[in-house]
């Protein structure tokens, strides 16, 4: 039987979590759209990452940066699914991305198409470093590779994206 204080704490925790969710949902979802190239997959990962955080909210809420924990959880889930998708993709069974680009202006479509053609690890690396501003050691932890590997992957990704930008502008 919970005490009044515990119930009050739980209620406050639920409100805090809802605020956290509403503050971070779009940014995480948008990031995962770029990483996965699939809006359905991005929504699934977003929901699952938040749910896992919610299950641990009493411990996560007292961390300095709960959002970092959220992104780490989301990327870990992405890596787990990526390994499945990697095996399926290597088996030639294409799980085609379903990103809705209706209404997009041309330049964004081009670059987004370029992002989507990047190998998943390059995509995740450039997003982790350039979009999420993570230091390479943190990005490496999240992606499960060495920091030097993250930097190399991101560098390869940037070269490919820059080439696409120059091609479009040229």
């Amino acid at each position, binding site marked *: 039987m919970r005490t009044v204080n515990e119930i009050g704490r739980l209620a406050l925790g639920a409100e805090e979590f809802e605020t956290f969710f509403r503050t971070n949902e779009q940014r995480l979802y948008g990031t995962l759209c*770029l990483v996965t190239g699939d809006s359905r997959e991005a929504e699934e990962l977003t929901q699952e990452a938040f749910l896992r955080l919610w299950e641990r909210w009493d411990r996560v809420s007292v961390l300095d940066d709960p959002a970092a924990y959220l992104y780490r959880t989301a990327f870990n889930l992405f890596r787990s699914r990526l390994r499945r998708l990697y095996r399926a993709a290597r088996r030639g069974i294409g799980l085609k991305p379903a990103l809705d680009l209706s209404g997009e202006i041309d330049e964004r479509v081009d670059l987004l198409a370029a992002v989507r053609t990047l190998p998943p690890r390059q995509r995740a690396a450039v997003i982790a470093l350039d979009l999420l501003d993570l230091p390479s050691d943190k990005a490496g932890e999240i992606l499960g590779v060495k920091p030097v590997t993250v930097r190399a992957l991101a560098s390869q990704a940037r070269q490919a994206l820059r080439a696409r930008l120059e091609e479009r502008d040229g």
Partner: protein
Amino acid sequence: MANVRTHLEQMRNHFAPRPGGFERLVARRDRRVRTQRVVAASVALALSAGLFVGLWNLWNVNPMPSSPGPGPDRGLTIQVGGSPVDVAMGEGSVWVATATDSSGRGNVVRIDPTGGRIVARIPLPEIGALTAAEGSVWVVNLRGGTVTRIDSATNEPTDVIDMPSLLYEVAEGDREFVPESIQSGFGRIWISTARGAVASIDPISDRAVLSAGDPQAILGGVATSRRWVWAWNVFEPPDAEVWRFSPESPEIEGIGVPDVVLDAAAGSAGLYLLHAETGDVSFISEAGQHSRLGSAGERANAIAALDSTVYLAAASGSIYAIDGLSGERRLLKHLPQEPIALAVAADGLWVTAGDGTVTEVVLGS
């Protein structure tokens, strides 16, 4: 770099989640709590119902499928075409599943291992992982949610078997068992889904039943050893876990492992685990004891086991054998292309690669 970052930020800001995200999250949480309770009771009931079938099949254990006999040291490489996705040995042949396009269509290519001759190409509307046992070749259809059975005597598909619905929802209204990995054992065909469940097919009735499930698990594959059925998840520690259960019992034992499992293979004494980026191999004995064994020393794509020897296909193209007792590693062969999958039996090891080839590695070389 600034341009790239600016564009990435703009693109990210463009994507808006569907309205009602928090409400969906609440429903998801409530559903998970409810289904955890349902699963505990329902899995026990389902497994009890399958107990008689399991006992009957154990009583009438079929002998191991015939393995290709030892051959000369030929190191055959055969062009099967398409993109090979899996390879299996059994029913006297080597079987390669190869995709011919990204829609999932493909062929099962049958190879006579003694001569390296392609005996048959069996077209299928959807190709996936496969196993050869019980007089047939069984091919997973990931998109279709079914398993195709091919008679090894005629090379003709004889059945398309529906997978059972999950006992829980993975999304609203979605209970689909999406089959991914397949393996034979105990007179049945075992299939796992990343959606957290294992099912098995009775080759006499072609009926599939659920065997184990957990809505929170994302399973990476299934294997069978002398006493156990095994499945493993794809999570990071501390959630990385291997299941084992007896085909006659509803009880699942979860064994925590210290590293992410990429793939696994059963040998005579237990289950060998291949860990993702490191190429490390660890071992869980039939008694459930986990220990580190050895390593490819580089990223590896696939693992197979025969008796107490483990075979690894490294991403570099190197094919290794690791002694299951000492952990000693030996390079068997180096392929020019990155390997995709491998299968082993008796003196034969066959490896598929992305260039549409399957290569024989004669054991003992």
